[in-house]
């Protein structure tokens, strides 16, 4: 076999090996019961999600049974809005969250308290007075 042809074949082999393998989109109907339960808020928009988004959310579904009831409820209430963010927004959110987790515990508590107060003010509920 001429060297040129051999080299071309090797190059083609590498090129083919490097080509991204695309995952196939999974229709909502093909998900199992546990996945459907975990991703219920996305049932209406699931089929329009990209293959990679679907793969990401399926990995959430794997962790869903290990969450407590409150965490499951929070996940459900936030999932749809989260799915509508751009990859860049999600990336920024992860960076901010990591920075937040690095704060000392007392600072995190202070942030949580501030957020609670803001939420209460927004909903018209007077903030709870500190215990005497």
């Amino acid at each position, binding site marked *: 076999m001429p060297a040129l042809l051999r080299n071309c074949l090797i190059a083609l082999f*590498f090129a083919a090996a490097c080509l991204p393998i695309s995952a196939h989109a999974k229709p909502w109907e093909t998900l199992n019961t546990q996945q459907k339960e975990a991703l219920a808020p996305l049932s209406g928009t699931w089929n329009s999600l990209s293959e990679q988004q679907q793969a990401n959310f399926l990995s959430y579904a794997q962790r869903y049974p290990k969450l407590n009831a409150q965490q499951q409820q929070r996940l459900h209430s*936030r999932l749809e809005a989260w799915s509508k963010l751009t990859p860049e927004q*999600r990336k920024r959110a992860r960076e901010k969250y990591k920075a937040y987790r690095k704060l000392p515990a007392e600072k995190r508590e202070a942030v949580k308290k501030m957020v609670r107060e803001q939420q209460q003010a927004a909903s018209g509920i007077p903030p709870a007075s500190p215990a005497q």
Partner: protein
Amino acid sequence: MKIKLSNKEIGGLLNRAAQQLDRSTLDELRTARQHALKNQRVESAIWVSRNGLLHGQLQLSQRALNWIIVGVVASLLVINLTYWERTYEHDHSDIDIAILTDDLPVDMFVD
């Protein structure tokens, strides 16, 4: 007056002349020939269309062709890796779940 000689005739004349050369010159010529053969260019037709509209020839040494192939493969790798990087988000399910189930609302972290 111009004398036109064919390649065959030139070859014959050169052969006869070579027989009259001394040993050291012959050795030098042999060395030069081997060197030239080692670095000879490979002529490969690369684009030949059936209608003859597009055709071309690339004259490159074997080594140059190898480098071009290495370059093509490296470029494909870079393109594919960039594609993966841009198109596919890595698995962040751990941190995503943490954000989505935290006490703080997601809005706190979204621009």
